[in-house]
């Protein structure tokens, strides 16, 4: 199941608060920067679509070569979970987003966490990577 994937959580003010390369394929250095660039460029498109639809999971909103961007928006406006991937596993991606959303809420419940700051917990990181291996 070699697939490239880059996952990012963007909060309001468009600041990424969490980034991770979760693909199983070997990573190349330039590819990492490229992935981040693609995800940031897709933010505008996300804004447009998010206001028109009332669904939470927006499938493939953008393409680049053969990589596809999928986005999940939460009700608390402007928190977006974005995933760049080349697989076509929509249901798996949806469940992945839902589980990461739960993890994100749990980290928000931490009174010492300032909402909008970077998530530095290694526990969060390990869990996200485990979920990625499971669903992607």
């Amino acid at each position, binding site marked *: 199941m070699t697939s490239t994937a880059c996952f990012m959580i963007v909060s*309001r003010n468009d600041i990424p608060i969490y980034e991770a390369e979760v693909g199983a394929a070997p990573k190349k250095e330039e590819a990492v920067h490229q992935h981040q660039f693609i995800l940031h460029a897709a933010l505008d498109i996300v804004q447009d679509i998010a206001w028109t639809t009332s*669904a939470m999971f927006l499938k493939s909103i953008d393409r680049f070569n053969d990589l596809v961007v999928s986005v999940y*928006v939460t009700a*608390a406006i*402007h928190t977006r979970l974005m995933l760049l991937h080349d697989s076509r596993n929509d249901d798996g991606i949806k469940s992945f987003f839902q589980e990461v959303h*739960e993890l994100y809420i749990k980290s*928000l*419940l931490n009174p010492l966490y300032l909402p909008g700051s970077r998530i530095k917990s290694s526990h969060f990181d390990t869990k996200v990577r485990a979920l990625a291996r499971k669903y992607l």
Partner: protein
Amino acid sequence: MGKEVSESCLDILLIETVSSYTNGFYAGKPELVAQAVEAIGYQVGNQLCERYTMERSQFSDHLEAIKFICTDFWIKIFKKQIDTLRTDHKGTFVLRDNRFRWISRVSNPISEDSGATFPSTLPVNFAQSRKMHLYFPCGIIRGALSNLAIPCAVTADISSLPSCIFTIQIRRD
């Protein structure tokens, strides 16, 4: 995600929070007490709102968001809905709860038989200290709304126990 807590524990915690801020940390400075308690409520409101809007998608406008607060949100916290909601469609919402849970235990010395043992200054202090207990729910509402990207100011009013009126003023700027 969501364990249960006994209600009397929660009541005692809230009463003690207000009392320790009023008499301990900021004794004699009611404005600071109000700010501190409201700030605690703000953070709690943020977190509760995130949790309870997990399944939902975005709200289409302010009225929808306020209705959510009046129904689902209030049910999850207080096990009942808000009884009356009024709006002037210009950004002011008036929420009225006929039997507000957290102040249902507060006694009302005015209605009791005034046995003349209370000094005349006491009713004023009672009103003041009762107001303190309302800053926390005001903060919760403000935190929940600001998590839905609606900046607002919330005030509360208990002129008639046990009902409670929250006034939400949405800031447009």
